[in-house]
């Protein structure tokens, strides 16, 4: 009798652990970071996405790509990064059919090394556990062509996607401007391939992502719970890995 009860408990414990494992596993898959390429200059594009349209890769390490601003009563903080990698799959009508972008937290620079470390600490972004901010494009709505010349076409769109910060994912809609620029003699000099620029500005509420909830810094007015994120990404149809490999061969 005693043995039966003990076996029953054991089986129940195994079932609970299995269920927990499944939940954690599912959460891990849902929020897992995209896979960077061998040298870390781009993200690996899943085949399912590559089939949808033309793939453009983000060009990191040159122009500033993301700026965040915190305008709190006691302190004004601005930080920037030019280390965003990712890709966007563009359809014929200028719509972004899919895409993933990854911003390493360690790349955010506020101009003060100590503040950068604070930002990466467990108290704020917990960069050791959650090293990246990830945005996945789910769909593009409200597409309208706002300007077109021989050299480029600009569209106004709304990007709908999932933003993951500190392991928490929320759906957000971002009004954006997208410009497509086919390769020309002028563009070739800078980077081979057709070019794409994405520009958007949007608010992020830190507490919605579990960042700085009830933190004395926010309560005291040193950091705002509402951040403004401004993004300007330049992308190319030519893989940055290929270009870098070619340059190395020379």
């Amino acid at each position: 009798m005693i043995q039966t009860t003990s076996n029953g408990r054991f089986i129940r414990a195994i079932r609970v652990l299995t269920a927990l494992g499944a939940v954690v596993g599912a959460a891990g898959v849902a929020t897992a970071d995209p896979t960077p390429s061998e040298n870390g200059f781009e993200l690996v594009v899943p085949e399912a996405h590559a089939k949808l349209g033309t793939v453009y890769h983000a060009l990191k390490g040159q122009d500033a790509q993301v700026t965040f601003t915190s305008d709190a009563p006691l302190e004004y903080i601005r930080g920037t990064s030019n280390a965003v990698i990712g890709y966007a799959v563009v359809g014929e009508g200028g719509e972004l059919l899919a895409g993933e972008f990854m911003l390493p937290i360690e790349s955010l620079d506020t101009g003060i090394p100590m503040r950068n470390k604070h930002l990466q600490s467990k108290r704020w972004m917990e960069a050791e556990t959650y090293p990246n901010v990830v945005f996945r494009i789910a769909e593009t709505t409200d597409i309208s062509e706002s300007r077109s010349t021989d050299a480029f076409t600009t569209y106004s769109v709304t990007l709908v996607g999932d933003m993951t910060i500190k392991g928490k994912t929320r759906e957000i809609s971002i009004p954006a401007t997208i410009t497509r620029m086919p390769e020309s003699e002028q563009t070739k000099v800078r980077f081979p391939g057709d070019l794409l620029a994405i520009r958007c500005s949007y608010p992020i509420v830190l507490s919605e992502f579990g960042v700085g909830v009830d933190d004395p810094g926010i309560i005291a007015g040193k950091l705002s719970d509402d951040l403004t994120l401004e993004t300007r990404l330049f992308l190319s149809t030519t893989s940055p890995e290929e270009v870098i490999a070619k340059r190395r061969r020379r």
Partner: protein
Amino acid sequence: MRTMKLLWRLVVLGCCAVIITVTLALWSATGKAGYTKYYDADRAQRDAEAAQGSMEDLFADTGIETLPEVENRFTLGLAPSGKTLRETASVATIAGPAIVVGLGSLLSIVLLLLGDKTPKPTPGDD
């Protein structure tokens, strides 16, 4: 002797007032920042190298706006921004001690002046 003491304390008070005023003026002139920051030559170099491959001018006519920049210049902050000697410079660490010393001087001046007013014992009082 008492006059000399008073004079020295007035000089100390004056110096403290100058230190506090100049520190606050520098804090205000450099952007009223929360933390002290220095011009970073390495960062300037990295930015300059990155700008060589910039796409900005290619897209200048498209209406794609530029991003606001993080300023790379000296600002004297209210609080220190690190543990190295130069990072400890701030309004709190420069004007703070001056305020303490200044208040001490002011207090001792007041006590000296009050001491002057206490009636001196005259012969025949006892």
